[in-house]
């Protein structure tokens, strides 16, 4: 934009420009508020900050720990402790009930054999064979 030349009237106004300044107190106030004049965090504050962080973390952990407290008491932390799986009882080698043979040694078999000597479920039973053989011999 073309510069507008000032006429005498404008120069008159310009000559009467105020010259007052703000009081020095304004600058002093701002210097007091200035970030560069505020105490900086020093090294001896670090442990305090660390303690605060640890306390906060502890509180968070406590809050997490007691969160199940909102559930019924039976489901509280104590109950949970009981629900932890106990070590499985050691189980010894299982008895072989049948290994290619009939289950002749079962309780029922022994009971029936006690009631009647003739009861026999297996012809492979050696004891039965022996008793039968003895019976035959007696008859002879």
């Amino acid at each position: 934009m073309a510069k507008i030349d000032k006429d005498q009237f404008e120069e008159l106004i310009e000559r009467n420009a105020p010259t007052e300044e703000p009081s020095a107190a304004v600058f002093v106030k701002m210097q007091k508020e200035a970030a560069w004049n505020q105490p900086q965090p020093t090294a001896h504050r670090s442990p305090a900050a660390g303690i605060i962080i640890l306390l906060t973390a502890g509180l968070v952990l406590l809050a997490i720990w007691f969160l199940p407290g909102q559930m019924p008491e039976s489901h509280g932390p104590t109950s949970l402790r009981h629900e932890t799986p106990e070590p499985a009882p050691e189980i010894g080698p299982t008895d072989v009930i049948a290994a290619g043979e009939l289950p002749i040694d079962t309780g029922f078999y022994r009971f029936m054999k006690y009631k009647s000597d003739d009861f026999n479920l297996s012809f492979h039973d050696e004891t039965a064979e022996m008793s039968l053989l003895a019976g035959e011999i007696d008859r002879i």
Partner: protein
Amino acid sequence: MLLICEPMKNNETKNMMQEFAQNPARGFEMLYKAYSGPLFRYLRSSFNLSREEAEDILQNVFLPWVTTPEKFTKVEHPASYLFTSARNAALKSRGANREQPLDEDRAEIAGESLATRVETGLAIDEALAKLPLEQKEAVVLKLWIGMTFEEIAEVQQCTLQTVASRYRYAIARLKELIPWQR
């Protein structure tokens, strides 16, 4: 008279902002020295504020620069920024646009001759007080602060043509109000 725009027209503004970014304490001192006076006079003359009111606004305008300097290191035109901030604050203040009370030293010469009143600037103050705010601002910023029309348009948030028109109307009106030797 130190015009506000002198530093804006050379590299001083850039140097000030570079200094402010590197050393906020020193940079702010430079900024305050350059702009506090013109801002204060602009507030007083344009908005008819008392010294206390103008100082309060001045403090509010500069305070963010000292409390959070990191936010202002990227400001390229501090003058425009500061004057716009001051203008907005002044418009919000309840004291804006009211009749300007006469300072004691100027009240004493209120009854003096016309020549004395013109010479001391009292007649100019009285005439300025009769102008609409935007016209008064245009005269103050142009003739007393030393801004260009472009810079005034930035502060007043209007077009260049609007500022030029406001200024021309203001000068014409002042010529009617102030008796002066042609």
